[in-house]
């Protein structure tokens, strides 16, 4: 499942984000493509991902964060 997911992500259009933001998005189970970037050229930062996650009432967030620590 993991494999096909990233496979899809790879095909899912160009997202402009720092790798740390991408990792955070994975950890927070956020779809990076859905995050609005606030950086130059719409780049997605760590903060954007966090803001998105907080605005999003996704249940998985907490467990993802815990399992990452």
């Amino acid at each position: 499942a993991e494999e096909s997911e990233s496979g899809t992500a790879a095909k899912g259009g160009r997202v402009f984000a720092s790798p740390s933001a991408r990792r955070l998005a994975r950890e927070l189970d956020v779809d990076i493509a859905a995050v609005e970037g606030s950086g130059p050229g719409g780049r997605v930062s760590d903060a954007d991902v966090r803001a998105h996650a907080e605005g999003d009432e996704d249940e998985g967030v907490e467990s993802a964060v815990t399992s990452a620590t």
Partner: protein
Amino acid sequence: MSDTQNLTLVQAVRDGLKGELERDEDVVVFGEDVGKNGGVFRATQGLYDEFGEERVFDTPLAESGIVGTAIGMAAYGMKPVPEMQFSGFAYPAFDQIVSHAARLRTRSRSRFSVPMTLRMPYGGGIRAPEHHSESKEAFYTHEAGLKVVVPSTPRDTKGLLAASIRDPDPVVFMEPKLIYRAFREEVPDETYTVELGEAKTRREGSDVSVFTWGAMTRPSLEAAENLDGDIDVEVVDLRTLSPMDWDSIVESFKKTGRAVVVHEAPKTGGLGAEIAATIQEEALGYQKAPVTRVTGFDTPFPLYALEDYYMPEAARIEDGIREAVEF
């Protein structure tokens, strides 16, 4: 009369040399055993008979002397095409290459230049003795003033060699001896150039970009085919390693967001490092996974009982591609 011939890569070297020898009287070909013997790989076969020993000649066994005299000839206005018998035997000439060939233009503010093409077969996999399997292109790409070219097909070989010989600056022309005779391609009879500094996409793909050159191009394409249907792999043959075609690399990467660099040279300090560093510099925002390096090991190239373990082959490249994609 045909317009093309079906040639191996080493035959294309020979054909390229022949074309340039015919085209320009200032071109001379020399080195150890390149005359009557036609080169230990037969890359100069027949040229001695055809052009005579003024144009195609053997030298004493002295690499620094070969490159040093080539520099003198080049500064004088000739277009020398010396051969190093194996890239592992170019080191005695290293000072002449990096201190003089690379710098004569800058030192003399372009009064003198060194339009020399220094041919050398490189790479492993042919069950050769010690020191015969080096691939240390990174030594030359770190020296400003040199160009470094590595062909991967017969057709490119002839065109890149012609472009190198006609280039006003010194070119280290590294020939992938593993594939000297591995396959044939239709090569035009007439002379032509393939522009230096331009990468070539050998296979288009959207999931991951493989950047490679020379003898590693074929196993990279093989790996891509093996993964076909599963992962859509782009394979870019860099062809000129200095100056590098950064635009093509970055563009491909921005498309895929994932990359694998494949080279035979040891990992640490190999060109894969420069490619990874540049990618993250220019396209970090697109980067979905680490640029994976599938390379030789950080060991001297082993004697032949172990050489096949040393060199990347399709299975290893597939693993590397999966690693990049599954990150």
